[in-house]
């Protein structure tokens, strides 16, 4: 097992990936960010990620498909869905399919940081979010 949680961030809005890379990097995660779902899926075929943070609504591939594909290859991966179109039915569907959490956009960086910290700790990583991840309010996606 890697010493740092391996995190993949997928959002067709490139800025989200950039900012989450910064936020999650500060709490000790190794982050790879993608804005193209096909590239991200190819990368998940090559490498086993501990945590995947993915947008739900993205052109021809949606976050639920990403979730299913990631879990088919690696059921232990924690998949966190983020979306600007959050609704109860979508949240329930995501959780039924095995999502770890469902977060509505816009979110505060510390919200994602807390979810990732929780997921990483469940997987056995020792991270100290309070020391490493002071939130920067200017970074809200």
């Amino acid at each position, binding site marked *: 097992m890697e010493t740092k949680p391996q995190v993949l961030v997928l959002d067709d809005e490139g800025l989200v990936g950039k900012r989450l890379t910064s936020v999650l990097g500060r709490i000790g995660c190794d982050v790879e960010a993608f804005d193209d779902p096909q590239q991200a899926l190819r990368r998940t075929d090559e490498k086993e990620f501990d945590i995947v943070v993915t947008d739900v609504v993205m052109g021809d591939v949606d976050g639920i498909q990403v979730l299913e594909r990631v879990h088919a290859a690696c059921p232990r991966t924690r998949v966190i869905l983020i979306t600007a179109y959050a609704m*109860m039915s979508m949240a329930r569907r*995501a*959780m039924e399919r095995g*999502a770890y959490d469902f*977060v509505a956009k*816009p*979110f505060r960086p510390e*919200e994602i940081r807390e979810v990732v910290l929780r997921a990483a700790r469940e997987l056995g990583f020792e991270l100290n979010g309070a020391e490493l991840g002071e939130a920067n309010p200017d970074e809200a996606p």
Partner: protein
Amino acid sequence: MSSVLISSRSFTEGPEVAAAVAEALGLEMVGESLYEVAEQHFAVPADALQRAMEQGPSLCGMSSSRRRRLAWCVRATLARRLTEADAVYHAALCGQFLRGIAHLLKVRITASPEARCKAAAGSDVPESQALRRVEASDRVQNEIARMVFGLDDLDSDYDLVIDLSQTERQGAVDEIVAAAQSPACRPTTFSKNQLRDRQVAQELAARLACDLSIEVDVRVHGGTAEIRAQAPERKREKIRARAESHAAVLEGIDRISVETVDSWLNPLPASLR
């Protein structure tokens, strides 16, 4: 784990099912005790709150406007209770409370008209009157739903509708417990934030409604409270001042916007519950 909100049709074993669900899930059962909690928090008599939510309209009874104002106190108290810890809440019209929050499971318990009439026909009520008693009870529920929430209380407002004429009581309990423990009803960051926003909105609505005796609707999203009040435009600044004063002691409100609707011909729309 989710909280479970159970409404039962009159003359069914809904209360017994709700108690068994609470026991099976290891959660507190909340029912009429909510009125007492609301009384302490909002300084409104518990019996008035109970009448607002449960007693049918009558010529000399409570006005619709006062009923809606008191209902905010009950709604805010329930929302606060559910943000503190999961619970099983048993009351009428649960389908209308806190709509659209994924980790709140809404259940309606019903039974066939025959079974309900049989239950209604107690020692003091002949069978010939039992059907009228059942129908009157349903009619009252619908009238209260329309007055308080602006909507009918429909089966489609519930995640599960269980007919106790078709299912044994234990089967109903098992079905509800399984649904409450299913992944679909697990709390998410989204659903917890929604509940927190709704709790703050309902708390502010209750305070404004009681304080200013106005019809009001409040939504909170991302720290902004949007207030719609049925009041003359000239009262807008007074409402804003009171809202700011109340919001100062509530967490989660950074900005306030106030819109007044100055016409009884253009009432507030059915609020976001």
